[in-house]
């Protein structure tokens, strides 16, 4: 399945390769890997809405496939506790040409950030706190609406 929500880590190289293995019509694969940044943060916990999450990610994928000619899409989002430096999210797009792959990957991340039901809680020296939604993420998602 193109969309996965899991506690386990994932293998970016294998995921990228899977989008073009056994076929020769893919000219471009773009991937995005999101990681937990440290600094004051000692741990991050990802909560989600089981059932709706998968549905939301599949809708986001379907929307990307309507907008761009894609040969493949993979979306993986981890949940549960994650340490600084850990992978959180992975999005990859395969297309014949690079522009479609780049745009679709950026679109998927912008939409995922504002539409998929995940919530981050960070532990810092001040205690554990839910991360606030960022206005810049709303703005990033809004630019795809025309």
């Amino acid at each position, binding site marked *: 399945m193109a969309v996965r929500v899991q506690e386990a880590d994932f293998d970016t190289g294998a995921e990228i390769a899977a989008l073009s293995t056994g076929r020769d019509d893919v000219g471009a694969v773009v991937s995005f890997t999101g990681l937990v940044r440290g600094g004051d943060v000692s741990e991050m916990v990802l909560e989600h809405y089981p059932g709706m999450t998968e549905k939301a990610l599949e809708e986001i994928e379907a929307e990307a496939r309507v907008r761009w000619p894609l040969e493949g899409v993979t979306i993986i989002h981890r949940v549960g506790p994650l340490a600084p430096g850990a992978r959180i999210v992975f999005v990859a797009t395969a297309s014949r040409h690079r522009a479609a792959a780049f745009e679709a990957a950026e679109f998927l991340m912008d939409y995922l*950030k504002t539409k998929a039901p995940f919530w981050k809680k960070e532990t810092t020296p001040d205690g554990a706190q839910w991360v606030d939604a960022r206005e810049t993420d709303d703005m990033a998602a809004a630019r795809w609406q025309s």
Partner: protein
Amino acid sequence: MKLLYFAWLRERIGIGSEDVSPPEGVETVAALVDWLKTREPRYEHAFERTESIRVAIDQEQADFSASIIGAREVALFPPVTGG
């Protein structure tokens, strides 16, 4: 009707889900939230700033003005912060 709460809303209310039977006349998300706020102070506290609360009806994003009539599952949560 099943209610689900996530993130700090879940923490303030103290539970992740519950089954409720709203009284007659409670037909929208907004009315549902107003009714919940009358039940106990923890709901009042959780829903004090409804502009920062999002809703999904049967796992689809919805507005506070949306009808909850016939809904099986209503989820209330803060703006999402994944990715």
